[in-house]
Structure formats: structure tokens, C-alpha cells
């Protein structure tokens, strides 16, 4: 195939993906643990490997505003951020999706202040689930590279025209080095043609963009945006399929079920923790336990059908997430349960809140979750929302 292999971090893999996607404009503001991706991109621009304009913006708000400006003239735009930075650009996220700008952004999942923490959890991106962006969570550096390319193909699809946020777990993925296969530029060029859109400021055909609309039309624009995000489900699957055909790697589209076919206990996850779950599933399977793990890749569009399909035979479901919607439960859990309820299926489900503020989630922790679910399946009374690995006693409280 003429591909090459490199030993790089998740951040670096993302940067290589962006280079291969031939982004025209990169605007970014530094924040740990995102920094390396933009450092590498600026090196690529300096070295002339990447013909792009690099804008050293003064804030994340400006990073996304600049990306929208670039996208508005028909350029392929990229930015990357994390945590507080993502929240600082929150206004712009809604703006970009509403403006139908097919920007791709990498987000290094990191906890939110307060207390301050630079370590990983997924509260940043999940708190912006309603921003109109498609959200994908990747598991390793290879998927990170591949998704940068796929993300542009999805975002720029004429029936989607919606920005895509590619989420990498902070440090665990962004800072971990591993083997990555780099596709050939020619192949990527064939897979991802230049960005072509009519939705742009054009001197031949001038436009007024990002306009206001009164209550008599506004809802139609929102409905249209919703339809496009739903439409993305199909496009994501197609893009994944054709990526597999071209590069030999695919990720299952919206979800990736592992040993779920006959599983009675299924743990649902997001992102890089899935890897550890796979290892535990193998171990438990070797002990004869019917367990599986279901990785949600896309939180938006939400893989409702796929989740129902894969969990069809399950007796109990667990949702493991590095997130909590204070005063209720994890957001992924809420979404999963909504899918189950709408389908009319009654199935016990439990929510494991783990890894907040960067706390490690070990194999033992995951084994504990499967045991918990097993006990629940056999009728034991269990708390629905369970914090994993709290370092203190909370009983009787």
C-alpha cells in the first residue's frame, strides 16, 4: 500500500490526519492537553509540508470565530481545544452548527474547573451535546488519525454540512505513544476531494450569511439542521465503509460492539476506556461469562437503533461514563435509557460514574462493574447511579 508506520501520540496522530486532509486554515489557542496537536501542525506549516494558514488567535472564542470565517469563504478549517477552552468557545459552537459550517475540531477531553484539573474526563464535550455538533469519541491514536479524515468527509457531505468534534481522552490518548499507520496522501486525496460548497461568500454569487430570522421562519432552519444531523447517521456509516474499502480499517460507524452477540451483560462506554473493557471482557469470557462491551462512537447523532440492536439479548446494561450531570445522572446513561424506553423494552440499566478529574479506571474497577451488573441481573437490589472508586466512605450519608 505504500503506507508508512510511525510511533506517535494521539495528538500527533490527529495532526497527521489534519495534514492529510489538507486543512487550509488552522486557528488555535493553546490548552493542556491539546497543545501538541497544534504544535505539530505549526511545524508542518513551517516546514512547508502543509500548505495552510496558521492563525495564532488570542482565545478559543476567536479560534472558532476564525474557523467560521475561513469556512464561510469555502476553506477547510481546523481547530483544537479542550475543557475550559471548549466552554469558552461554547457560543461559537452553536453558531458554527447553525451556520452549517463543516469545521472539524479536535477536543482533548479534560475535566472542568472547579476544582481545577488538567486531567481527563468527558464533562467538557458532553456538556455541549446540544450544541449541534456531531460528536465522535475515539479509542486509540490510529482511530484518531483516521477520524480526522473521515470527519471532513462527513461534515462536508452536502446533506450533512454540520461540524464534527473528534474527542480524544486527555493524556490517556492524547499523550500516549503507539504505533500508527499513515495512509498515503494520494489515497487520502482520492477519498477526500477538495471542499466544495455553494454555502459560501463568493464574488461571483455574493451571499449574506449568518442572518437573523423571525419566529415565522426560525424554526424551519432549526428543523433543517436537526434533519441534517439525523441524516449524518447514514453518511457516517457509508464513510466508514468506504474508508475500510480504501484503507483497510473501519470502526463500525456509529458504534462498535465487542463480543456482544450473545452477551447477557453489556457495558456501554465512550472513548479510550473501551480498550481496558475489551481486555476484561476477554478475561471474563474465558471464565464462561456472557459479557460484552459496546463502544458508542458517536454521541450525536445518537445511535439509537444500533444500541437497541446490539443490546437485544442483554439482561442488564451498564453505562460507564466519565461524566455526571449534577443532580441527576450521567448524560450518556440518560440518552441510552431514552432509546430503551422509546422502544418499549424494559431492561435494567445501571450507571457507573468513573474517572472524573482524571482518576484511573483499572481492570479491577471494570471487573467490579461486571460483577455489579451480574448481581443486578440475578435480582439483587442495586443503586442505579454508582460512583466508582471514590476514595472515601460515603455509607450512611
Amino acid at each position, binding site marked *: 500500500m505504500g503506507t508508512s508506520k510511525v*510511533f506517535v501520540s494521539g495528538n500527533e496522530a490527529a495532526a497527521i490526519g489534519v495534514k492529510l486532509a489538507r486543512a487550509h486554515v488552522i486557528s488555535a489557542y493553546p490548552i493542556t492537553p491539546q497543545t501538541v496537536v497544534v504544535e505539530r501542525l505549526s511545524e508542518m506549516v513551517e516546514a512547508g509540508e502543509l500548505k495552510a494558514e496558521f492563525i495564532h488567535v488570542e482565545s478559543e472564542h476567536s479560534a472558532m470565530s476564525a474557523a467560521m470565517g475561513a469556512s464561510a469563504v469555502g476553506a477547510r478549517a481546523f481547530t483544537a481545544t479542550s475543557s475550559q477552552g471548549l466552554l469558552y468557545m461554547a457560543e461559537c459552537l452553536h453558531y458554527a452548527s447553525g451556520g452549517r459550517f463543516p469545521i472539524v475540531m479536535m477536543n482533548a477531553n479534560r475535566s472542568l474547573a472547579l476544582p481545577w484539573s488538567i486531567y481527563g474526563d468527558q464533562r467538557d464535550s458532553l456538556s455541549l451535546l446540544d450544541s449541534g455538533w456531531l460528536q465522535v469519541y475515539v479509542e486509540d491514536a490510529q482511530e484518531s488519525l483516521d477520524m480526522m479524515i473521515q470527519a471532513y468527509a462527513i461534515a462536508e457531505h452536502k446533506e450533512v454540512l454540520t461540524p464534527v468534534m473528534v474527542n480524544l481522552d486527555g493524556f490517556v490518548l492524547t499523550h500516549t505513544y*503507539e*504505533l500508527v499507520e499513515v495512509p498515503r496522501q494520494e489515497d487520502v486525496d482520492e477519498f477526500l476531494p477538495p471542499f466544495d460548497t455553494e454555502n459560501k461568500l463568493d464574488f461571483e454569487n455574493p451571499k449574506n450569511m449568518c442572518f437573523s430570522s423571525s419566529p415565522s421562519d426560525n424554526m424551519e432552519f432549526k428543523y433543517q439542521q436537526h434533519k441534517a444531523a439525523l441524516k449524518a447517521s447514514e453518511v457516517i456509516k457509508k464513510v466508514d465503509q468506504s474508508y475500510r474499502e480504501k484503507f483497510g480499517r473501519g470502526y463500525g460507524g456509529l458504534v462498535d460492539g465487542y463480543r456482544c452477540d450473545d452477551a447477557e451483560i453489556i457495558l456501554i462506554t465512550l472513548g479510550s476506556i473501551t480498550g481496558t473493557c475489551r481486555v476484561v471482557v476477554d478475561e471474563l469470557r474465558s471464565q464462561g461469562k456472557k459479557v460484552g462491551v459496546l463502544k458508542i462512537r458517536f454521541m450525536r447523532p445518537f445511535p439509537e437503533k444500533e444500541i437497541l440492536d446490539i443490546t437485544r439479548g442483554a439482561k442488564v446494561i451498564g453505562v460507564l461514563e466519565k461524566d455526571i450531570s449534577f443532580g441527576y445522572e450521567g448524560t450518556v446513561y440518560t440518552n441510552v435509557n431514552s432509546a430503551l424506553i422509546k422502544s418499549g423494552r424494559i431492561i435494567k440499566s445501571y450507571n457507573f460514574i468513573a474517572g472524573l478529574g482524571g482518576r484511573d479506571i483499572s481492570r479491577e474497577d471494570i471487573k467490579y462493574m461486571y460483577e455489579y451488573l451480574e448481581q443486578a441481573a440475578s435480582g439483587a437490589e442495586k443503586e442505579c447511579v454508582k460512583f466508582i472508586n471514590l476514595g472515601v466512605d460515603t455509607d450512611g450519608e
Partner: protein
Amino acid sequence: MIEIRWHGRGGQGSFTASRILGAAASLYGNKYSLAFPSFGPERRGAPITAFTKIDDTKIRDRSEIKHCDYIVVLDETLFTPSFFQDLKPGGRILINTAWGERYKEISQDLIVTFDAEAIAQEILGKPVTNTAMIGALLGISEIIPIEAGAEGINNEFSPILAEKNIRVLKKAYEMIKGGGYA
């Protein structure tokens, strides 16, 4: 799976060592590996830990290393006897020191000492011991062939720096093989 933990101070190249070994194993040693630093802010002089996981199949588990096959100590002031609790059965601790005898008193079989700084000073002209310690580690472990280790260095450094560091690597490897360590 072989799990290695590296100890040094910010600026001494511990994370680079973990990465060189990982790259060597992945790109040239026909294995899979993960290399990662202790997560958090990087500050010059602060104690740093780094990790390398090496296996024959793709490594899915990204959680912290709890038990190590090898603990490599680039800066001996960071060594504490608590390290023994972090070893797998049969695991060993490799320490960069000019005073090997001191550690013999602590443990005869769990600690291997090696004067990496002497080699680094001799060939590089500065006390950067990470490549010497990789050489010593490969000498006692044979995780991957020494030639793969050399390629790992080529992958990391510019040609001139790589050439010197490969000399360091090989010298350390041969010395420890020949039992010529402190």
C-alpha cells in the same frame, strides 16, 4: 505483557527513553507497545515517571501500570524501597549509580546497578543517561534486539545525535552483558 516504569527528573529524558523503547519495539521489534508519561504538567527538575508497555498483540488496556517487570531509575535520588512493592514476581529494578555496592546491601537479586552516567559523559560529554539505561535494560532483559533499540534511537534523534547515542546504547548493552557494571 512487559511493563516498564521509568523514573527521572524533568529534563533528564525519562519520557524520551520510554518512547524510544516503545518505538523500537513497535517499528523495529515486531511488537506492539504504548509509551506515556506520568500525566500532568512538565516541570524541569521535578520527579517524572514514564511508562512503556510491550506485548506481542495490540495493547488495549491504557490504564496505569500497577506492577512492573522493570523499574528503571535514571536519577538514583528518586529510588525508594517502596519500589519493591511495585514489582511483579521476577521483576527487577535497574538503577543508574556510580556506587553499586550501596544497593547490594539493600537487595542482591531485585536490584541491578549500572553507571550510565560514566558512559554518557564519555561519549556524549554530558550526563544524559536515558539511552545508556535503555542499553542496560536491553542487556538484562532482551525485550527486543539491541539493533531494534538502535533503530528506535534513529527514529527519535537527528543523525549526528543518533549516532552518538547508538554508541552509548551499544556500549551500555555490552558492558552489562559482560557483567562489567558497577
